[in-house]
């Protein structure tokens, strides 16, 4: 057995635990020191996090492959000295003043931000902002009842299989397709149903 190989494996196992927040004590301290300048370990960190991204399925626009490189290039380009302060603040008033002084000297802009909750604006105010061009409803039209904002739905598993999956039995897929075909091709969900059918053709 190659001793170097074993050593590298041990480090990567520790890295794997570190990214999960499950590494402690001297192992953690040693790995942190190593991680700052070990390019192979950094590359493993990057790839492990890419695996995480694929598996945890962040939705929405995908970030470009060199996003992190561009961020670091922008930071380097600012040529600001690395911000200096101990973060555990209990009694670090002096440290705060030093950091503030350093920041002012470097001309670093202060960042002001406030605490807000991320809520889709249109869903917090149902019924607001109706346009003047809205058509008059006939007398027997159903009344629009205000509906409280519902919690986002978690992805549910089908049947009792446990941790979420979207595997469909062909019988269930048949319902999706029959619904999608029922006559409104532009309706949300139609493309998803067709994708399910397409997936079954492979």
């Amino acid at each position, binding site marked *: 057995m190659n001793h170097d190989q074993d050593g590298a494996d041990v480090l990567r196992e520790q890295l794997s635990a570190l990214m999960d927040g499950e590494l402690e004590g001297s192992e953690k301290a040693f790995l*942190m020191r190593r991680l700052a300048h070990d390019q192979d370990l950094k590359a493993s*960190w990057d790839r492990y996090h890419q695996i995480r991204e694929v*598996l945890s399925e962040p939705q929405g*626009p995908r970030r*470009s492959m060199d996003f992190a490189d561009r961020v670091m290039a922008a930071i380097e380009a600012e040529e600001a000295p*690395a911000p200096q302060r101990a973060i555990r603040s209990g009694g670090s008033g002096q440290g705060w003043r030093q950091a503030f002084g350093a920041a002012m000297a470097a001309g670093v802009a202060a960042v002001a*931000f406030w*605490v807000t909750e991320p809520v889709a604006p249109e869903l917090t105010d149902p019924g607001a902002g109706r346009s003047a061009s809205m058509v008059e409803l006939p007398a027997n039209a159903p009344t629009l009842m205000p509906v409280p904002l519902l919690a986002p739905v978690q992805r549910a598993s089908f049947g009792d299989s446990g*941790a979420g999956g979207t595997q469909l039995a062909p019988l269930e897929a048949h319902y999706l397709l029959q619904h999608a075909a029922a006559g409104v091709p532009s309706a949300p969900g139609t493309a998803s149903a067709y994708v399910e059918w397409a997936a079954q053709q492979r």
Partner: protein
Amino acid sequence: MSEADTDLELVSRVLKGERKVFDLIVRRYQSRVCAAVAKVLRRSPDIEDVAQETFLRAYRALPSFRGDSSFYTWLYKIAINTARNHLATNSRRPQLADVDISVAEHFEDERRLLDRDTPEKEMLREEVEQTVLKAVDALPEDMRTALTLREVDGMSYEDISKLMECPIGTVRSRIFRGREAIDRLLRPLLKD
């Protein structure tokens, strides 16, 4: 012991002068920050620029991070605020996008408006995703279960060990070996 502790450790190192450690933080949260910005900016082509600005602001503001919330919560607030500022500044600008989808040779993925990848990088990303998904499917069941519980459900090692009825050390090993098996296939794809 938690991921938040790892974050604190990384932040602490940056504050001690190891600027390059910030790179690890960026790689850890880049997708989530983009997703947070996208919540506010929706289909704007500025999402990546605003996400980049978020990390720059976070870097400059690190001395003010007191550790009384988790680092990611702090970063997330910066992302939302930066995105909202961008929205407020740019709300009067009319949409000038004029997109033409070419038909025959290859269809353009509209999402390329939102990132800056070349076609080669876009294909690489697709390949990375396919490789990871196929590799996970091919893992032995105990590794796949442990890794899925960790990455998809965000469970701690302790909770996974209770669920899988095995020691925590075994959970750690299974997750590592699962990642390694996938990583072996990714390495040749991502070699610079």
